[in-house]
C-alpha cells in the first residue's frame, strides 16, 4: 500500500544486495538515524536514559551478538551472562590499569578479550550439537561467574567484591562514573550500537554469514559443499562474544557503574538475552532490536500498569512479569518461531502486495 516499487530497479550488484532494497525502507532508515542522532540527545532526560533507552541499546548489542551465534549459526548459548561478565571485568581491569587510555578503546578491547574467551568455550561445539551444547555453555556461565567471584584479582581486591567504574572522559565529557550526563550515556551506547549493527549486517549478508546459516540449516551438507565448520563455528562464537563483551562492558561501565557479578551477570541475564532474540526473531538483526526493545519496555510498562495504575505491590507485578514472559516465549515458539521480525516481514509483504492478498 505504501510501497511504490515501479521504477526502483537495480543496475549493479552493489545496489541489488543493499540492506534496504526498497526506497521507502531506505527513507525510513535514514529518518530513524536522524531522530536517534540529532533529536533524542537534546530531549533525553535521566529517567528515559536509565530506564529505557540506555538498557535498550546495550541489550540490543548483546542480542545482536547472541543472534549471530544462535539465530544465524544455530548454536544455542546459555552463557551470555558469563560472557557479558567477561566484557565487564575486562573493561574494569583495563580502565583501572591504563587510566590514560581512552575508554572507547578499552570497551573495544574488552570485546576482543571476550571474543577470545568465547572462541575457547566454543571449541566443544565442534563435537557437541544442539542442546548438548546449550547445556555445555551453562558451564561457561557458572564457571565464569564463580571465577569473578572467587578470584579477587579481578575486582582489585575490593572488600565488597564489587567493581565500580571510575570516571572517564570522551572529548572532555564524562561517559562513565556518577557525574555522567544522560545524553552522554545515550550517545556512547548509540555509537556502539550503530557500529555493531552495521558490522553484524555486513557479516551476515556476506560469505561468512552464509557459511553460518549453512551450518545452522544443515551442517553435514554444508561441510560437504565446502564450508569449513571449524572456521564457521569459531568465528560465530568469537564475533558473537565480541558483541556480547562490548555490551557487558557498557552495561557495567556506562549503565550500572558498579556491579556484583552474581546478580548483574547471573544465568537470568543469559535467559533474558535469549528471550530477546526468540521474541524478536532468530536470525534477524532487526529482530534483535525489536526483542531488546520489547523486553526492556515490558517490565516498565507492567510496573506502570500494575503498581502506578492498579496500585499492586511490586513483587506481585514482578511475578506476573515472569508468567507473561514465560507465556510469551512459548507462544512465539509455537505461533511464530521467527518472532516479531517475521511479523514485521509479513506486514511489509502485505503492504507491498496491497490490495492483493497474495
Amino acid at each position, binding site marked *: 500500500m505504501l510501497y511504490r*516499487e*515501479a521504477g526502483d530497479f537495480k543496475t549493479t550488484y552493489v545496489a541489488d544486495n543493499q540492506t534496504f532494497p526498497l526506497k521507502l525502507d531506505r527513507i525510513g532508515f535514514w529518518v530513524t538515524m536522524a531522530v536517534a542522532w540529532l533529536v533524542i540527545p537534546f530531549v533525553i532526560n535521566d529517567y528515559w536514559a536509565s530506564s529505557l533507552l540506555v538498557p535498550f541499546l546495550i541489550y540490543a548489542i548483546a542480542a545482536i551478538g547472541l543472534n549471530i551465534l544462535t539465530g544465524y549459526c544455530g548454536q544455542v548459548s546459555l552463557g551470555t551472562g558469563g560472557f557479558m561478565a567477561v566484557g565487564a571485568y575486562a573493561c574494569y581491569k583495563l580502565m583501572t590499569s591504563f587510566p590514560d587510555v581512552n575508554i572507547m578503546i578499552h570497551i573495544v578491547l574488552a570485546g576482543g578479550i571476550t571474543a577470545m574467551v568465547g572462541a575457547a568455550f566454543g571449541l566443544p561445539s565442534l563435537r557437541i550439537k544442539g542442546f548438548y551444547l546449550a547445556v555445555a555453555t551453562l558451564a561457561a556461565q557458572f564457571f565464569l561467574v564463580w571465577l569473578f567471584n572467587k578470584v579477587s584479582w579481578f575486582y582489585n581486591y575490593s572488600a565488597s567484591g564489587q567493581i565500580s567504574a571510575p570516571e572517564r572522559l570522551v572529548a572532555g565529557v564524562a561517559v562513565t562514573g556518577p557525574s555522567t550526563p544522560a545524553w552522554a550515556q545515550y550517545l556512547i551506547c548509540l555509537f556502539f550500537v550503530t557500529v555493531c549493527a552495521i558490522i553484524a549486517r555486513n557479516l551476515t549478508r556476506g560469505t561468512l554469514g552464509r557459511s553460518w546459516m549453512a551450518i545452522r540449516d544443515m551442517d553435514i551438507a554444508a561441510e560437504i559443499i565446502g564450508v569449513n565448520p571449524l572456521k564457521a563455528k569459531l568465528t560465530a562464537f568469537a564475533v558473537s562474544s565480541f558483541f556480547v563483551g562490548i555490551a557487558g562492558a557498557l552495561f557495567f561501565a556506562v549503565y550500572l557503574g558498579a556491579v556484583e557479578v552474581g546478580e548483574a551477570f547471573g544465568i537470568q541475564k543469559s535467559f533474558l538475552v535469549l528471550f530477546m532474540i526468540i521474541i524478536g526473531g532468530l536470525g534477524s538483526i532487526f529482530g534483535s532490536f525489536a526483542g531488546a526493545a520489547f523486553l526492556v519496555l515490558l517490565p516498565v510498562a507492567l510496573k506502570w500498569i500494575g503498581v502506578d495504575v492498579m496500585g499492586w505491590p511490586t513483587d506481585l507485578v514482578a511475578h506476573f512479569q515472569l508468567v507473561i514472559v514465560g507465556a510469551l516465549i512459548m507462544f512465539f515458539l509455537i505461533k511464530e518461531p521467527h518472532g516479531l521480525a517475521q511479523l514485521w516481514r509479513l506486514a511489509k509483504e502485505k503492504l507491498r502486495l496491497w*490490495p*492483493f*492478498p497474495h
Partner: protein
Amino acid sequence: MTDQNPPEGLVSVPHLLARNVQLYGNKPAYREKEFGIWQSWTWAETADEVEALALGLLDLGVNVGDHVAVIGRNRPALYWSMVAVQSVGAVPVPLYQDAVVEEMTYVLENCGARFAIAGDQEQVDKIIEAQETVHGIDHVIYYDTRGMRKYDHSEITSFTDIQNEGRAAKARLSKELNTRRDALGYDDTCVMLYTSGTTGRPKGVVLSNRNVIETSKNSSEFDHLSAGEETLAYLPMAWVGDFIFSIGQAYWSAFCVNCPESAETMNADLREIGPTYFFAPPAIFEGHLTQVMIRMEDASRFKRWMFSYFMEHAKTVGPRLLDGKPVGFKDRMLHRIGKYMVYGPLKNRLGMSRVRVGYTAGEAIGPELFDFYRSLGINLKQLYGQTEATVFITQQPDGEVRSDTVGVPSPGVELKIADNGEVFYRSPGTFVEYYQNPESTASTKDPEGWVATGDAGFIEETSGHLRIIDRIKDVSKMADGSMFAPKYIENKLKFYPNILEAVVFGASRDRCTAFINIDLTAVGNWAERNNIAYSSYQELSQHPQVLDTVLAHVNAVNESVSQDEMLAACQIHRFLVLHKELDADDGEMTRTRKVRRAVIAEKFNDLIDALYDGSDTIYTETEVTYEDGRKGKIKATLDIRDATVIAKTQVAA
C-alpha cells in the same frame, strides 16, 4: 508522396544514433535484465557495439542492399544488429521468433536473405532446417552461445566473434563503413517487415527511412516523447509497432529501451522498470485485468468492498480528471483517498505507476476494460494503424479519449472514406511497396499514394474521430440483405472475461451463429472456486454450467445488438463452445491473434452445418499441432445451445 526534406540531415537510423551519441552520450540507451541486474548501455556504448558489429558484417562480406534476417526475443544485441545492418547499407528483416519452420522458410526465401542473425540455438536450428529448402543463406550469426559449441562453425559465427573481428579490422574497414553510412539516402529502404496477413501468405512491406523517421518524428511530437521516457520492449521484433517504438521513436527521442530477462519474468521486469511509455494489445491489458479480478476474489471482505467502492468512484471521476475536466471537491477528496488505498497500489502492482502515455491497438478494446485502466489514472489511449502506414493512421490526443473511437488522423496523415465505407489514408509513413509483389502493391496503393486499409468505418461529424466497424471484406450482407459485421459482434462477446475468442457466421445466411472459445484462466478459476473438477480444456468447455454462463453472455449481447437497428439482424441464434483453443500453430489465427475466418469456416464446416441444421449435439474430430510440432487428433461431442433473440423492431432502413 509528401516531399519534405529530412530534418537537419537525419536521413537514417544510424544518423540518429550518431546524433544521440553527441547529445546524450552518457544517457542509458538500452537496458536488459540479465544475470540478476539491469545491464545498461549508454548511447555512446551502443554506438560502438553497433559499429563493431557493422565492421564485422563488412568483414563478412555483407553488400549494400543485402537482406539480413534478424530472429530472436527482444534483446539489445538484436536491436543493434538491425542498426548495424542499416549502417552497412543492407536491409534488416526481423522475423517472428515463434514462427514454425515452414513460415520461416517462406519468408527467408521470399526476401532472399544472405545472412541471418539469430538470438539462440533454437532459432539457429530453425534456420538450418529451413536451409534444406532455401539455399540463400551464406552465414548465420548467433548471440547466445549456449549449446552452440558442437556446431560446424564454418558458416556459423558467434555475435561476439563477429564484433571482435570487426574491432580488429577497424583500421582496414572503418573508411568503407563511413562511406556506406554517408551514402544512406532518405528514400532508401530502412527495414522490411512481413505482415502477418489475415489471408494468404505474409507480404514483405518495404519501409523507407523517410517513412520511419517522419512517422517517428510526428508521433513523438504528438505525445511529447522526451529523452526521459522508459519503455519495455517485449512485443515481437518483427512487428512494425515494436520497430517504431523501440527503434524509430527511441532513436528519434533518444529514450531508453528495456528488455525483459525472460518470458516468465516479464511481469516482474515490467514492475521493476515502470515504463513511462507503454504499448500493449488489448489481450495483454485484458490478461492483467483478469488477473486483478481473480486475485481480488481471494481478498478479505473489507478489501473487496474497498476495491469495488473506489473502483466505482474512479469510473465516474478518474477519466474526467485525466481529461482535465472539472470535478467536485468531495469527489476530488474521495479520489485522493482512493488513489492512496487502491489506484496507486494497483498501478504499482501492474508496473504502470509511471505510465505517462499508454497505447493499445490491433483489436477493438472493451469499454469496461478501457475504462478500468483510464479510471486508475493511466493515460491509456487508442491508435489505429497498420504496417503499411508505418503504424500511425489515427490516434487519440490527450483529453479526447474514448473506447469506441480510434482518434483523429495522426500528424501528416490524410483520411478519406470510400463510398463502400472503406477507410483510405495517405501519409509520409505510407509504405514504399510490397517486396517483389507489384500487383498487390498496386491493388493496395493507388498512384496518388492513397492506401486502402481494408477496414470499414466512418468519421464522427461531432468529434472528427474515426470509428471502425469491421474489416471491409468481413462486412457483408445476410440472406435478407441486412448488414452483417461479425467482428463487431465478436468484440462485444470478447469483452466478457470468460470468452477468449468468438467467431460469428451469417454471411448470406438467414441468421447468425457463433463459435465460442472460453478463457481457461478465468473459467478455470471460476471452476476451482465452485470446485468443479475438469481434466482438460475440452471437458471444461463442455461443462453445462459453463455453457449456461456463456449463454447468458450471448443473450446479453443480443440484447444490446438489438438496440442498434443497423446490426439488429446480427443477433446470435445458436452457438457452440469449441473443444479446442483457436491457435496460430494450427493456422486458425495469425501470429498477432487475429482469427482467420476463412480457414476456420473451412476446417470446422461440419460444426457450422450442425449450427444451422438444428441438431443439438455434434460429434467431431479435429487435427491439432502440439508445441513440439507433433500432430494429433482430438475427438469431441459438442452441445449446441439456442440463444434468445429479441424480435427485430419493424423499421424501414
